[in-house]
């Protein structure tokens, strides 16, 4: 640095370097709407009860499926091509608190649309504390007190009147791989709730967990499914019968985070979307020749999953056999940098 201002703290960390831009407080934002991903569900031949005396009719809806989280939508006005960095002030903290994470960042005109996914539905809502460089902040101030720095081109890089970002912690956190471990179901009873242990990382102890806000966009996601099929045929009540049922259930999970204590940050998953499809054929007859041709197991289930290759939820074509719109795996679980700050610095 030939000229300018360089301020370090007693750890030797750079606090102000006039050569570089700094994030400043843009504002505090509440959501404009809240939504959930609609369930994808459907089936063929919903009621076949009584056929053969044992044709299974139970759980053809979303029974036993874990609850979905909800998605809060925010609109953040900020100039420029780069999105603001948005810290989440969670609805609660602690080891039972819901997890929340930013799942979508999208430019919409001169605003940025930010979507925050929270793993459980709560009456309270998360609040965003957003920051941007000075050249992306259009608000002005009449205050004449403070410190302002410029780079060698004369561009303002730091201005204490706009509340610079102050961090109290940070580091890197990974998300679990699978959201659900162990058995994913038994017979017609699905079990896909999030049971992965949260991944925890620590930061320097703060006085109040409820005052903390965090920046950590969601990157990881996982999809897990459960399939089951069963068939039977024979004689029942003096009639020849045959039935075959095939089902597929799935959940799509997004990674999200919580302040678990005054010194602990945790990552896990929430159920972002879910679906259930089935096909159930059944027939009975007093004549041998009129029975359906699916007595040899696998044919129906094979057709059901044949086209499970769709990669998009929005474009899922159920009629065409796209019953599982996500790959049955997990992605993006590598390290995620996070920053912790305090809401009270900016309230």
């Amino acid at each position, binding site marked *: 640095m030939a000229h300018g201002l360089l*301020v*370090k*703290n*007693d*750890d*030797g*960390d*750079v*606090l*102000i*370097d006039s050569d*570089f*831009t*700094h*994030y400043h407080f843009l504002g505090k934002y509440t959501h404009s709407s809240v939504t959930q991903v609609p369930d994808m569900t459907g089936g063929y031949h919903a009621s076949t009860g009584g056929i053969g005396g044992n044709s299974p009719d139970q759980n053809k809806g979303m029974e036993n499926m874990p609850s979905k989280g909800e998605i809060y939508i925010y609109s953040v006005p900020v100039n420029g091509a*780069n*999105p603001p*960095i948005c810290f989440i002030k969670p609805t609660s903290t602690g080891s039972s608190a819901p997890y929340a994470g*930013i*799942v*979508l*960042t*999208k*430019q919409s005109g001169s605003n940025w649309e930010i979507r925050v996914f929270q793993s459980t539905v709560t009456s309270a809502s998360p609040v965003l504390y957003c920051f941007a*460089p000075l050249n992306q902040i259009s608000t002005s101030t009449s*205050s*004449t*007190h*403070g*410190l302002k720095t410029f780079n060698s081109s004369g561009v303002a890089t730091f201005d*204490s*009147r706009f*509340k*610079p*970002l*102050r*961090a109290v912690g*940070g580091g*890197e956190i990974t998300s679990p791989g699978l959201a659900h471990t162990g058995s994913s179901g038994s017979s017609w009873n699905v079990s896909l709730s999030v049971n992965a242990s949260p991944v925890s990382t620590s930061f320097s102890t703060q006085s109040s967990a409820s005052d903390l806000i965090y920046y950590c*966009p969601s*990157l990881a*996601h996982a*999809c897990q499914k459960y399939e089951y099929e069963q068939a039977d045929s024979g004689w029942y009540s003096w009639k020849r019968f045959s039935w075959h049922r095939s089902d597929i259930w799935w959940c*799509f999970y997004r990674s999200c985070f919580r302040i678990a204590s005054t010194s602990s940050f945790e990552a896990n998953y929430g159920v972002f*979307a879910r679906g259930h499809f089935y096909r159930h054929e059944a027939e009975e007859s007093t004549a041998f020749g009129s029975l359906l041709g699916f007595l040899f197991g696998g044919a129906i289930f094979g057709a059901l999953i044949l086209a499970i290759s769709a*990669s*998009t*939820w*929005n*474009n899922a074509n159920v009629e065409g056999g796209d019953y599982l*719109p*996500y*790959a049955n795996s997990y*992605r*993006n679980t*590598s390290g*995620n*940098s*996070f*920053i912790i700050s305090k809401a009270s610095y900016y309230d």
Partner: protein
Amino acid sequence: MSHGMKIFDSSGTETFSTTDSTWTILGVYTSNANTSTTHTGVPVMPTRIVTRTMVDQITGDDEAYVHTYSLSGSTLTTTAPDASNTIKTIFTVFGK
């Protein structure tokens, strides 16, 4: 604080001090969807972190790969793990 600096606003509220910690923006780099990119000229500070933000969606989908990266010296190397399903990713390099 026996030594250092505090900055106050006009109402006497402290807005920044040398007891604080912060992250300075060293650079913001965009890697477009499905494209591996090498970004050069990344400033160096003793401690750096890189945050990744997935921007937009791939064909309206919430399922996508995020770019992986490595930061060495002044070079940020970003890699698209999948040629058709890697989302546009903004890398923000912070230093202190």
